[in-house]
């Protein structure tokens, strides 16, 4: 099955970083893109402007992905605004709140699990309703090399991202015969606001590629996984980490 006409893809956290790069790449591939933002309306508007300037279609929606009551309305708004079925979803919105496990407080644990894992589950549950009926869907979860690989100070982030990979595998098998694929990408160290200040010389030496990755390099992988050509790829995790986890 191929992507329906006027297909819409929802990209959470699309105002900057990996999310913005994904939004641009997906629009370039013919998707109508609804990108969400929480704290960066200007960044979201810039991304929409970039996409429209390149001949694509996009809209920006304000959404706190941890607000369970807002998920249904957001998915509906994405489809209504862009005039097409929401058959794509990129669960990219994420936060970190680092501390050692011995010191991590409940709030730091909860916000990271809620934003990076539970939100992805809720959005997937909502989006699958339309995808299953449409007999077509593409869901890409932005996980991380952290989780499968240890990173001291990020036990909460690691738990959320590992959980996201597990969720991806099982959910993918449930809906595969409906033409819906669910995959994850696992970025390593990517040059974004989230990693600003983290990357130092020592960290770079651990990366076989000896450099951080760029958001566009992750977006290229998301673009592929969301494409018609990736219809037989599901339940898998594509590591985009310069060899860090090899």
């Amino acid at each position: 099955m191929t992507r329906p006409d006027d297909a819409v893809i929802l990209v959470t956290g699309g105002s900057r970083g990996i999310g913005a790069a994904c939004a641009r790449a997906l629009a370039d591939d013919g998707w109508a893109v609804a990108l969400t933002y929480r704290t960066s309306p200007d960044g979201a508007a810039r991304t929409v402007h970039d996409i429209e300037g390149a001949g694509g279609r996009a809209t920006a929606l304000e959404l706190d992905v941890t607000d369970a009551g807002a998920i249904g309305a957001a998915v509906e708004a994405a489809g209504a605004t862009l005039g097409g079925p929401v058959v794509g979803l990129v669960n990219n919105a994420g936060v970190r709140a680092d501390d050692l496990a011995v010191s991590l407080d409940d709030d730091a644990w909860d916000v990271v699990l809620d934003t990076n894992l539970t939100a992805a589950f809720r959005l997937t549950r909502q989006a699958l309703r339309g995808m299953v009926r449409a007999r077509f869907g593409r869901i890409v979860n932005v996980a991380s090399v952290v989780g499968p690989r240890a990173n001291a100070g990020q036990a909460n982030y690691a738990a959320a991202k590992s959980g996201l990979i597990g969720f991806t595998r099982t959910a993918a098998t449930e809906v595969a015969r409906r033409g819906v694929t669910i995959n994850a990408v696992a970025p390593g160290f990517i040059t974004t606001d989230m990693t600003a200040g983290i990357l130092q010389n020592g960290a770079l030496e651990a990366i076989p590629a000896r450099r951080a990755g760029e958001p566009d390099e992750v977006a290229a992988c998301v673009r592929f996984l969301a494409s018609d050509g990736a219809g037989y790829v599901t339940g898998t995790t594509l590591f985009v980490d310069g060899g860090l986890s090899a």
Partner: protein
Amino acid sequence: MSTTVTAERVEQVVYQALESFGADPSEFSREATFEQLDVDSLDLAELSQIAEEEFGVPLKGDDVKGIRTVGDAIDLIVSRA
């Protein structure tokens, strides 16, 4: 959203849905079990969604867990409409 809900209309919609899931229409009857028709939990989840879209009847997971036959599904939807 909801039209006049008759048992006949519900049966028609249920049968159409089952056929779209790949079940063999020649085996359809009220007594046919979902197991016999090779209709599984994903299909029933979609059937629940169809019931909600067609008849405004929201079915939760627990509602669907107890149904075994086509007749069970038809009766459940009719009773909730």
